[in-house]
């Protein structure tokens, strides 16, 4: 009897762990070759991680307006996406979280002229109970306050560096995270007392994180450019998707999530 039980007990955690490993790496699967020709069209959009919620919604709207066309997304760090595009990943549209990452792609003559479609401002994010009682940017310079920032190589980190420089502050973070979502996670779990993230991330956190506005954020506004790619397999449909993002409807969805109109 004991034998039977233990056999099941062995199988369960293993099965669980296998299940978990299955969902570990879904985020960055490269877009497959879009099926060209015929009526069934596919638009492949590479977009910054901070656009996950809004672009998914716009993708559904696009599919509803263009029956037979599907929109596939590859969300990730803008810099990683730009590298994937330079390495030849097939895509139709690229929406980046900074002009610098877009420039990597336009410099390689892979995309048409980019258009700024939204801007995102930084906020100080603190855990809901704000244990270190942070309420302005200079509180982050206190050595007692544990701060997480994005690494300077990624757009949110570059913006944070600009804001801190504008304020004349020297902040020593405990960690430089790879992307803004990872930075936000450290705040959500209460591992750090404060972090600099985008206003949209604070809104997306559903009250688990409190956002504090600060005046120096105006010096570090991030422009989000969007462009169709030169070799867009979807052709016209790619342009139509960009038009949707730039339309009134697109702007409403984006501003509701905390983005600002350019």
């Amino acid at each position: 009897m004991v034998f039977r039980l233990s056999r099941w007990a062995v199988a369960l955690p293993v099965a669980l762990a296998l299940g978990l490993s299955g969902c570990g790496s879904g985020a960055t699967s490269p877009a497959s070759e879009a099926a060209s020709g015929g009526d069934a069209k596919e638009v492949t959009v590479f977009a910054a991680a901070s656009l996950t919620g809004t672009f998914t919604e716009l993708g559904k709207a696009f599919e509803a307006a263009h029956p037979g066309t599907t929109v596939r997304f590859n969300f990730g760090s803008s810099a990683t996406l730009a590298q994937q595009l330079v390495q030849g990943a097939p895509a139709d549209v690229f929406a980046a979280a900074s002009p610098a990452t877009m420039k990597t792609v336009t410099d390689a003559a892979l995309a048409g002229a980019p258009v700024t479609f939204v801007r995102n401002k930084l906020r100080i994010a603190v855990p809901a109970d704000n244990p270190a009682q942070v309420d302005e940017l200079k509180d982050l310079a206190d050595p007692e306050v544990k701060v997480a920032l994005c690494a300077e190589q990624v757009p949110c980190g570059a913006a944070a560096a600009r804001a801190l420089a504008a304020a004349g502050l020297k902040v020593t973070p405990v960690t430089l995270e790879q992307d803004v979502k990872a930075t936000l996670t450290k705040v959500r779990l209460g591992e750090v007392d404060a972090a600099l993230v985008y206003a949209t991330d604070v809104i997306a956190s559903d009250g688990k994180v409190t956002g504090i506005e600060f005046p120096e954020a105006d010096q570090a506004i991030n422009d989000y450019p969007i462009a169709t790619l030169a070799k867009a397999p979807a052709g016209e449909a790619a342009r139509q998707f960009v038009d949707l993002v730039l339309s009134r409807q697109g702007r409403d969805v984006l501003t509701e999530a905390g983005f600002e109109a350019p």
Partner: protein
Amino acid sequence: MSSSAPERLDLPGPRREVSGRLPWMLVLPAVAGLVFLVLPLAGLLIRAPWPTLLERLAEPQVLEALRLSLVSATVATVVCLLLGVPLAWLLARVEFPGRRLVRALVTVPLVLPPVVGGVALLLVLGRRGLVGQWLEASFGITLPFTTAGVIVAEAFVAMPFLVISVEGALRGADRRFEEAAATLGASRWTVFRRVTLPMVMPGVVAGAVLCWARALGEFGATITFAGNFPGTTRTMPLAVYLALETEPEAAIVLSLVLLAVSVVILASLRDRWVSAP
């Protein structure tokens, strides 16, 4: 204790080769397997920015990350040895209810994506974690964002390699030597120390080498649990990932350094310690 690797038996007379033609059914997939494993390495070598290599290597951040990687992987291996060898002994030599379950649990970090492992560590050892909360309140110790945190993350991911290797060696070892020692009056601790451990030493060394290599390459659990800050938690794999964001060439250089160091160390250890039968 001194002669750890079992010496090869040399049979008198000319060794008899297995005659006949090479079995292509084995050789072809073997060569394909080798090419598959080595080709990505060749890719790194071909695309490496050789003209600027030295200049890039001399950057202080590279040496800092390399030093941190070597130190933390080595300390993590020591931690794994201190905890993992007794654990392997327990699994191989002591009958207790639920042993099969425990054995399965030991391998969980192998199948768990390291990032999930890092989140699990945060939930237990983080500042607001189950144990971490108490650690901070009682001793003022916080593990995340420290080098100790890197070691914890690496040991968590790498320990199963050591345990499985040592347990396999223990199961394969001839128990009659242990029984003989016990009949001659040796205590269980003495038997372990003077008979069992020397017998399974090749397995322990092989396990430690695997464990060290895994710890050296650890990425997901480290970046999740320990964060990413130069000098304290940014190990080589983290530096490679960050460099990949903006400067793929720098990432290639860093990867080459990590590869070169690990290949040199592993190859020299293998010749010295791990007997290939």
